[in-house]
């Protein structure tokens, strides 16, 4: 009796560990895609450290990372570029995974933290902090985090009527999200010009000048939430079959949905608090990953890696595109992610798949 048994069943690869205790399905393509994405992310991450107004060779980068080399290179690498790239990486991972969870539990490819109120709740908290001076001592990070969680809690409570459904969460989410958008618009028209500019600078989503103050809370959040998501993936797949089927299969539907929602909200809120609302990543990354892996639901790990690659590459381009200024990363993510997504769709149209 082998310890691991791998067999092809009905055109799929299944595995079984031990005698009967653990079994499941292998999806080799997903593993391959994850590997390629991880390697690509690492390359772009390294390139992001080496490329800039003060170009560094590979040797310089390695030496500076180890704490050697001349003091200027040391400063550029350790104080400026590494923290920024780390924030970009973490934000991408968090948003990609958050989007994958939300799209799976609502069974809606358009669901993302931007659509159901988390991002704009954070935005409203930060803008009202800037314009009304309300709790401004807390700083944008705490305000953004609190706003994101408060909006999500409001959505959940309003959607609760003897339990929630994914559909009701989506509808209430739209309402809350648009209320926050309108409130932001209203505050912006009432604000002084310098306040409006400050708020606008935060609202476009920016990695400029981000350092370990932003990276550390996000990293801690990810260390908790990513393993939690991976543990919950099992139930997430079942929940995708619909509430009735899932509870028929013995899944505690309400509890699972609450736990998944909590992780998704946490990931999105921490990412938004660190970098501002970087739109589109949470929506596009899961779909790009799904099309690459050819699975029916967005795969969370591949989505997280896609998100990381998207934000890292966009940040690199945003820094290089204009000679005298930097574009906010959010603008480049939109152009990049959208173009890639459309190319994937066009290719699929030709290949009769999807």
């Amino acid at each position, binding site marked *: 009796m082998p310890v691991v048994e791998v067999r092809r069943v009905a055109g799929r690869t299944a595995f079984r560990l031990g005698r009967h205790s653990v079994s499941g399905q292998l999806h080799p393509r997903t593993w391959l895609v994850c590997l390629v994405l991880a390697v690509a992310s690492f390359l772009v991450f390294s390139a992001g450290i080496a490329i800039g107004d003060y170009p560094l060779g590979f040797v310089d980068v390695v030496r500076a990372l180890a704490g050697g080399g001349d003091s200027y290179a040391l400063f550029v690498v350790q104080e400026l570029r590494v923290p920024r790239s780390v924030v970009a990486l973490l934000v991408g991972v968090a948003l990609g995974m958050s989007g994958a969870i939300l799209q799976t539990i609502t069974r809606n490819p358009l669901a993302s933290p931007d659509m159901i109120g988390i991002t704009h709740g954070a935005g409203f908290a930060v803008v009202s902090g800037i314009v009304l001076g309300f709790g401004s001592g807390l700083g944008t990070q705490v305000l953004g985090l609190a706003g994101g969680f408060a909006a999500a809690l409001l959505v959940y409570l309003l959607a609760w009527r003897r339990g929630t459904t994914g559909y009701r969460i989506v509808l209430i989410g739209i309402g809350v999200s648009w209320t926050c958008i*309108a409130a932001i618009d209203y505050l912006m028209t009432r604000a002084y010009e310098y306040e409006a500019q400050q708020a606008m600078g935060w609202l476009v989503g920016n990695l400029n000048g981000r350092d370990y103050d932003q990276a550390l809370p996000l990293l801690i959040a990810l260390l908790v939430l990513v393993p939690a998501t991976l543990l919950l993936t099992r139930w997430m797949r079942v929940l995708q079959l619909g509430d009735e089927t899932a509870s028929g299969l013995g899944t505690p539907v309400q509890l699972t949905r609450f736990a998944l929602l909590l992780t998704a909200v946490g990931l999105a809120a921490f990412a938004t608090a660190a970098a501002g609302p970087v739109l589109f990543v949470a929506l596009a990354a899961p779909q790009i990953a799904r099309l690459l892996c050819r699975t029916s639901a967005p795969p969370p790990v591949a989505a997280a890696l896609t998100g990381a690659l998207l934000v890292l590459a966009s940040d690199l381009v945003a820094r290089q595109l204009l000679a005298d200024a930097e574009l906010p990363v959010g*603008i480049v*993510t939109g152009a990049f992610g959208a173009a890639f997504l*459309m190319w994937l*769709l066009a290719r699929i*149209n030709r290949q009769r798949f999807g």
Partner: protein
Amino acid sequence: MVCVVALVSLCLISIAVGARPIGLGEIWQGIVQPGGSEIDAIIRDYRIPRTLLGLLVGVGLGLAGALMQALTRNPLADPGLLGITSGASFGIVFAIAVAGVTAVHGYIWFAFAGALLASTVVSLLGGLGNAGATPVKLAIAGIAMTFLLGSFTSAMVLSDAQTLNRYRFWSAGSLAGQPLEIITQLLPFLVAGTLLALASGPALNSLALGEDVAVSLGHRPRLVRLRGMLAITLLTGAAVALAGPIVFVGLVVPHIARILVGPDQRWLLPTAMLIAPILLLAADVLGRVVARPAEIQIGIIVVFLGVPFFIYLVRRHRLTEL
């Protein structure tokens, strides 16, 4: 029936209320036998075009939103999802920054052209592959197009302060300031779109039962989708070009209509068509009254007026999923 009465009285209120209140008798006189008085001029040049615009834009957005949600079978779909709103925005920024158009009325055709172009590309990508159109593909293609054009627009706006100022004026969304001639020029598109939309009710009903059922009932899904997308483009393109991106109306009104009359598209489409202008005109009137004599942007009022009602309905009723 209730909707029709509400709509007619709102039209009258919309003509009457403003920085200079006008009595009902004066309105009657101003419409039936206009003289040269100041009040007649206000009615003819400002209040009527504005009310008419609210009516038309509301009809357009309400219908287009209901169609869009039926075609993509997605509750998050808004009429701008085919890339229409972002196409129109891009057209306007292009007109200002590259083509050097300065007259406000010149923008409108650029906006309309941008909307048409964007929705054509999205329809090709999401609707006409070998594997056929699926609601999911259409939605994804649309949202990708929206963000692609949105990025270009923001990049152009950020790099040019003058463009930003003019663009902001349009993007705030307003029913004020369009003369009657412009409205009548775009009217044929709106009428054509409305007829196309109302005609697709039965076909959409059978499409909701699934592609195979629709085919067996004698409908051609591809044709139905194409017709629907054409109607959406005409309606939203004209509405957005005239009044700026007031998209929220088209997102939330179809849900309200669905809760009130159920999922039958033959009822849902006309209901959405009536509720949207009610919401829009009510918001416009309220915006004029709340901060008199200044005004609050209609986009903001629509949200604060519509969302509480929407959430109440969502909580109150059993929902029919799309």
